[in-house]
């Protein structure tokens, strides 16, 4: 569904992405992992067209995204740090997004109800805590029933109850045959969700394997252990 071909990106002197290629298909749940500053967020933002790569192309359903913008209607994006206009209320932001997307598909308000957002609608964005912002981002990402979900550290800052709600929701959407791309540093929670693992380091895509393959190769059941095993023996990878 998403096909990335040789994209590179440089911010000034800093090389963030080096000739990254990958392809992601429906029904997969991709765990995008790697150390801080390894280019995960930049890769995601390139797919969304928020960052324009210096070279390389990205295809969404076979179409080059370069001069297209409608493809974003099929993507729900939850940013790492949700930034919203300070003096709008939650309700206004959600209404604005509904107004802009004008989605014909039925709205998916599961999370909206699960997080009990109704009581928060009148709150201004600037007064929100980090966790509440995350909830708003999550609601917006799932609201339009997109075919692709891109979640950048979705559970960071969420309380255990909310993060469990979110994980169940992700699982449910995966069952529906959607493509889910998650970045996270909490590998234990990816254990239950991920079907494929993409490991990035210093802007290079180190490996892209299915979880089963990874388990077989390393003999470890836990993702965290498998990854650290691979990282300790870089030649094997």
């Amino acid at each position, binding site marked *: 569904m998403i096909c990335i071909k040789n994209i590179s990106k440089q*911010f000034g002197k800093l090389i963030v992405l080096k000739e990254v290629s990958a392809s992601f298909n429906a029904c997969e749940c991709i765990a995008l992992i790697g150390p801080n500053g390894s280019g995960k967020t930049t890769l995601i*933002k390139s797919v*969304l*067209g*928020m*960052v*324009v790569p210096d070279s390389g192309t990205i295809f969404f359903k076979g179409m080059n995204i370069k001069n297209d*913008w*409608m*493809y*974003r*209607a099929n993507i729900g*994006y939850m*940013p790492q740090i949700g*930034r*919203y*206009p*300070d*003096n*709008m209320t939650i309700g206004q*932001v959600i209404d*604005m*997004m509904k*107004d*802009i*997307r004008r989605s014909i598909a039925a709205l998916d308000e599961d999370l909206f109800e699960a997080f009990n957002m109704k009581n928060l609608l009148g709150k201004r964005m600037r007064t929100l805590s980090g966790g509440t912002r995350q909830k708003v981002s999550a609601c917006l990402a799932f609201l339009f029933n997109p075919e692709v979900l891109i979640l950048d550290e979705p559970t960071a800052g969420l309380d255990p109850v909310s993060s469990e709600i979110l994980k169940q929701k992700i699982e449910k959407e995966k069952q529906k045959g959607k493509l889910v791309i998650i970045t996270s540093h909490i590998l234990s929670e990816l254990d239950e969700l991920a079907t494929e693992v993409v490991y990035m380091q210093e802007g290079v895509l180190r490996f892209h394997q299915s979880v089963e393959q990874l388990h077989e190769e390393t003999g470890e059941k836990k993702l965290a252990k498998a990854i650290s095993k691979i990282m300790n023996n870089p030649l094997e990878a």
Partner: protein
Amino acid sequence: MKKIIKYVIADILRNKIVLAYTLCLFVFSFSIFNLEDNTSKGLLGLLNIILIIVPLISIIFSAIYVYNSAEFIELLVSQPLLRKQIWISLFSGLTVSLVVAFLLGVAIPVCIYEPTAVGLTILIVGVLLTIIFIAIAMLATLLTRDKAKGIGIVILLWLCFSLLFDGLVLFLEFQFADYPMEKIMIGISMLNPIDLGRILVLLKMDVSALMGYTGAVFKNFFGTSWGFASSILVMLIWIFVPVVISIVRFNKKDM
């Protein structure tokens, strides 16, 4: 696109500075016309306000507004919207609110006291200057990510156009007094939208004593109607060029 413009205007109205600006202009214009018994003197006073205050408010307000909308822009860019439309909507929203503010504040007194061609010209100049300085501010904010630096640049630009530029023109005039400088001076005056605005009004007013060096040259060279048309054309170019450059830059901007 209309929707984004609607949200931008609603957002601008919510912070009430534009309303205060309207009120200030309104009070200024009324008091200036009441201070002078001769309305054309009043018009000159008003012209000075328009040439100094209107560009200042437009450029600073737009710059700060664009910086403060960083989150809003970021949110929109990840949505199924064309980047060009986001930027144009932002520009249109600012333009509509500041132009309406200017017209409410100045057009009403002008229509009451001086409903003549000169009054109309002043209004046209005010509107054009408002739009030009919004366009310049938006380009400047796009080129600098740092807020303090960007606003500093914008203030310096205003200072250049409103004060320093006149000094430069005078300097050139004295230094090259022995040479035929008229045509070059016309070219130089095109580099300053505020100067163009002044020439535009004074051409209509026909007070050559106040026209300054470039104005006098302009009148001799073009005659009144050609001078009028060409200076309006150049002012439109002053809007068009920054807007086009900023759209191209915004299309490539990384969020």
